[in-house]
């Protein structure tokens, strides 16, 4: 499946300073929990502890699925679909 993944709010620094990632995930189906691991293995360039903590995103990172708060979409159990747009925003950087 083809996915659009965006990192912002300073999170892009962990992903080679690149915000927009258009990726092909070689899976028929995948839940968000497993996609996070896929991102860690395939996109993350440094300091994984600043992105993931105990199998989920680090507290303070907001996740949007197709422009909707992931807390309304089932969170980690969300079944990712082809052409989904995922956005990860760090709130941990200066204001």
């Amino acid at each position, binding site marked *: 499946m083809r996915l659009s993944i965006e990192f912002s709010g*300073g999170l892009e620094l962990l992903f080679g300073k690149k915000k927009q990632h258009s990726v092909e995930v070689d899976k028929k189906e995948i839940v968000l929990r497993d996609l996070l691991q896929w991102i860690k293995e395939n996109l993350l360039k440094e300091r994984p502890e600043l992105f993931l903590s105990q199998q989920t995103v680090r507290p303070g990172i907001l996740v949007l699925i197709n422009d909707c708060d992931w807390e*309304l979409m089932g969170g980690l159990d969300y079944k990712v679909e082809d052409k989904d747009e995922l956005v990860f925003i760090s709130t941990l950087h*200066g*204001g």
Partner: protein
Amino acid sequence: MKECTRCKTGRAVVKRPKTAEMMCKPCFYHVFEEEIHQTIVDNKLFKAGDRVAIAASGGKDSTVLAEVMTTLNQRYNYGLDLFLLSVDEGITGYRDDSLETVKRNQEQYKIPLKIVSYEELYGWTMDAIVAKIGLKNNCTFCGVFRRQALDRGAMLLKADKIVTGHNADDIAETVLLNLLRGDISRLTRCTSITTGTEDALPRMKPFKYTYEKEIVMYAYFKKLDYFSTECIYSPNAYRGYARNFLKDLEAIRPSSIIGENLHIQQETLSKIPEQGKCSRCNYISSNPVCKACILLDSLNRGMPKIEIADEGEKVEKEVVPTSVHKTINF
């Protein structure tokens, strides 16, 4: 798809940490702005004709603050003259970039911008300070200087008040840090919505009850132009730990951010030194000479190490703690 709990028609896109309500974009904007308006009204933060300087760093909080202040000023006819006020610490590759954002905000919100720099006020940029003292304690200098720089800039603007983008999460962090440092004096002051009423310009925090999550969501949905990069000189590790701890608590119980049942016994309060004025620069200070003058002095004399006693560093000979507050003898 989940339905908005407020209007029952729109598609819910955000879950509010404060109430767990699910809201569509228009309802979210509405309640977000109205709650801030309510905070402003309930606490009588402004009166018509006030000249209000918005402390603007180009980051998410101050950008949303500029947006919300201009929106509410128009919607409710507050009658405020708004200004953007930025401090240029002189940090190449960090502040110069974020100041570009503030310059764009000036155009977007059509309010005048004033930038004051450490270089013009103190004769030192942060680049020069770091070159001199290295990466330890540099945040102390920056923090102390920024506080005064904002006041001085606001005075140049003839402002009556300063508003800052400090949000509920920031205040919770500061409470925790002041507890850990045992700084009762700051602990009592840090949750006030208005500070510095006596001599310094009053500072208001209209986002006192606003969650960081909602500020970021608001900025994201409204596609606001903000800058988010960590300062190149500041890992600010200690605050970072406090922040992570609070985010972990928030994940379990979101209301821990707002929890404001902080009462300090009267007996303890009476022991806190009163705030007076610095004998050198007249700025508000709990000590005869303010922290900024002391730091500046040490920089100019080329021995900055002696002044950092209250950051958990070793207290060296010239520094004699005499009370709850560390006092520096001359």
